[in-house]
């Protein structure tokens, strides 16, 4: 391996239903069609060097998914981006490719910012739910996992949460002949932890602490990932900045441990 490239890609529209496994398979085929000179692992069944960073759940759209590939020949990042983007179906879009530099990609992805579109929810109802949630120290929710249910604290991971204001209805592709009357949009920044707490869990928590109900399946989009900018305001009502993980500036600062 002579070069590592970091890739930002988006999962848009109907293709947000692509699971991570599905994406991985499609991406490997796209690498082959695009003729990207991949480095392969040694051993009995060689596989291309790709490392994925925490993928968005199936059904959640994303503007900011990341992965890293290892190449056997030095390639131009922009040429690689455009070749890969052409080789992937519209809706799986390669947005940016840069050469990898320390620190490691995983260390640059500390938190995510999500947009949650709640069709059919009055903004005032959403406001009340958000206020109740933020006032709590801890909101435990049950989550179904492969091995049963697990209880997680949805409040602890939320760095910031606000109602971004009423949006245009029909954002979540509801039948336009029967428009829902209202639409509330949540803007939430959540820290990545293990085991994962997802936007879904925050929605469950909001329903727990208030009378919020969501008549239509909410449309969730990951807008950004990155490290939390320490310089930005820290109180939960405002908007902390996420530092672009592909930004070269980051390379000069050491992540806090």
């Amino acid at each position, binding site marked *: 391996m002579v070069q590592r490239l970091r890739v930002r890609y988006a999962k848009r529209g*109907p*293709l947000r239903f692509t699971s991570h496994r*599905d994406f991985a*398979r499609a991406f490997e*085929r796209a690498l082959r*069609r695009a003729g990207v000179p991949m480095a392969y692992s040694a051993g009995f069944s060689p596989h*291309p060097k790709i490392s994925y960073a925490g993928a968005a759940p199936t059904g959640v759209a994303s503007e900011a998914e990341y992965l890293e590939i290892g190449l056997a020949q030095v390639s131009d990042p922009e040429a690689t981006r455009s070749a890969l983007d052409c080789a992937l*179906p*519209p809706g799986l879009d390669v947005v940016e490719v840069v050469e990898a530099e320390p620190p490691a990609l995983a260390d640059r992805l500390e938190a995510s910012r999500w947009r949650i579109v709640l069709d059919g929810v009055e903004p005032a109802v959403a406001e009340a739910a958000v206020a109740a949630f933020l006032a709590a120290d801890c909101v435990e929710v049950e989550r179904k996992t492969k091995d049963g249910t697990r209880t997680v604290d949805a409040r602890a991971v939320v760095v910031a949460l606000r109602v971004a204001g009423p949006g245009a209805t029909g954002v979540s*592709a509801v039948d336009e002949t029967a428009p829902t009357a209202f639409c509330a949009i949540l803007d939430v920044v959540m820290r990545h932890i293990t085991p994962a707490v997802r936007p879904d869990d925050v929605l469950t928590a909001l329903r727990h602490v208030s009378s919020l109900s969501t008549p239509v399946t909410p449309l969730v989009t990951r807008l950004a990932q990155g490290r939390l900018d320490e310089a930005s305001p820290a109180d939960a009502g405002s908007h902390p900045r996420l530092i672009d993980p592909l930004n070269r500036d980051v390379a000069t600062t050491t992540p806090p441990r």
Partner: protein
Amino acid sequence: MPVESLFARLEPLLPGVSKPIQYVGGELHSAVKDWDAVDVRWALMYPDAYEVGLPNQGVQILYEVLNERADTLAERTYSVWPDLEAVMRAHGIPQFTVDAHRPVRSFDLLGVSFATELGYTNLLTALDLAGIALPADERTDDDPLVIAGGHAAFNPEPIAEFIDAAVLGDGEEAALRITDIVRDWKAEGRPGGRDGLLLRLAHDGVAYVPSFYDVDYLPDGRIRRVVPNRPGVPWRVSKHTVMNLDAWPYPKKPLVPLAETVHERYSVEIFRGCTRGCRFCQAGMITRPVRERSITTVGEMVQRGIAATGFEEVGLLSLSSADHSEIGEIAKGLADRYDGEQVSLSLPSTRVDAFNVTLANELSRNGRRTGLTFAPEGGSERMRKVINKMVTEDDLIRTVSTAYGNGWRQVKLYFMCGLPTETDDDVLQIAEMAKHVIKAGREAAGRKDIRCTISIGAFVPKPHTPFQWAAQLDHETVDRRLRALKAAVMGDRDYGRSIGLRYHDGRPSIVEGLLSRGDRRVGGVIRRVWEDGGRFDGWSEHFSYERWESAAAEVFAGTPVSMDWYTTRERELAEVLPWDHLDAGLDKDWMWEDWQDAVREVEVDDCRWTPCYDCGVCPTMGTEIQIGPTGRPLLPLSPV
């Protein structure tokens, strides 16, 4: 009138169902054409789950062939899982295509490919969800023509009341011909309506229209006769045979799905047809004669297919791939071409001879040698003479010794249980054979950790084969013989642990037997089973034998026929079979002779290498064997 996409209504519901990506479409090389810019619109269906249906070669070929026409569009639809079916019913969403999510009912034609009869209940689900009346005679001019194809269409009688027409044999030219007929009929202002169009199809001979034939029965339940009820409709409808496969190099750009499917590879048919003459094999009988694709075309298709898809595996498909006249050159040429690249080659390896191992060695040059598969089909020498699978035990032992000696660690052997004239002892012979395989294999490999897996299916007699007259073995006896075989394998101290045994219970095969050799009276059973919740009958977790048993008992009550009557009853030469008016080209007298030869344990050679034995296909269908060698090399790689 443009047809609205249903996706906006479907999308909010998808998060609640399993694997939603399968309903989204957007596969690489899928096509969405302007509805109003074409004259003829096909919905193509494979009546099983997307993961099984998407890789289907037949559907992919027709999809591409039809979409290449400027005046035609083709979209695909698959069976939806019961969770989505419930959601669609609750929200009034009809059966849709995955390409543009258009309602299936809006199309001119719904072509359904039946590789197996177990898809029949899924056809009913799709029709019902689409809002198309199940009985064909209740459909209106606003409904598409429902046309069945695939191997099961060689006896479509059990679904005769649900389909408008059936196409027998190769679909490429037939689909284009039907498209022409539909286009002209529409351009002329749809004279005669639906009936007029069906008459055109029937008169042309391109398709079989069941409603234009009356079936009379004898008091004992057998068929008295099948006669056309319209002037100008042929007494017998013939299959289609594409000659010159090099002129039809499809699929050129196979669909590459996002969802995981059962076959993730670029498959190229290296020939169609088979004249090995295995008497149980419907595919080998109805696809005659052998038509090879040339080494040059195979080489070009693989090159283009890999470049267009990014697949890592190439499958060289046919009914007996090692029989291609230039298979050695094809295998070596492809192995050379992809040496050092991450492309693996596979060959369904069922022929039992050492040459097959040489081929497999060549194809796995760069990869792992895990398992090789052979299909002796019958456990005893006698049984293999009955089914005309000309393999001696010595052949098999020699072959597997070569395989184990060449580093292969596992050999899989396919057998059938319930073949005509079979005794308990014939089945127990399978255990003996497996022990000999392990013994010889250990010697050849010089190690003890080799394995042999025996995979056994229950035999189902099929239409248009010499065994079409045979009694199917009852499932109790099949199960008893398989239990005895298992005891014989497991009880062996020396070899038992090196032998794996895979089999299913015999009951699904009885249902398959009912549907395979059934007539129009079986349609009522299919409908009853479907009303009772029958879905995805090819999946053991959805299949219910009891449902079929009780539906058959109910529908056949007070009639001379029964589930047993259709399955375990042997037929006589004089009996009119439900598919006698459908012509696969096989001479009925020859088939009867071959059936008698089977019982007498007399074998017949392959007509590719020995004189013609008059099966009837070539003279009846105006076809001929097309085999090489061409003597040409696999073309070197050229820039695409």
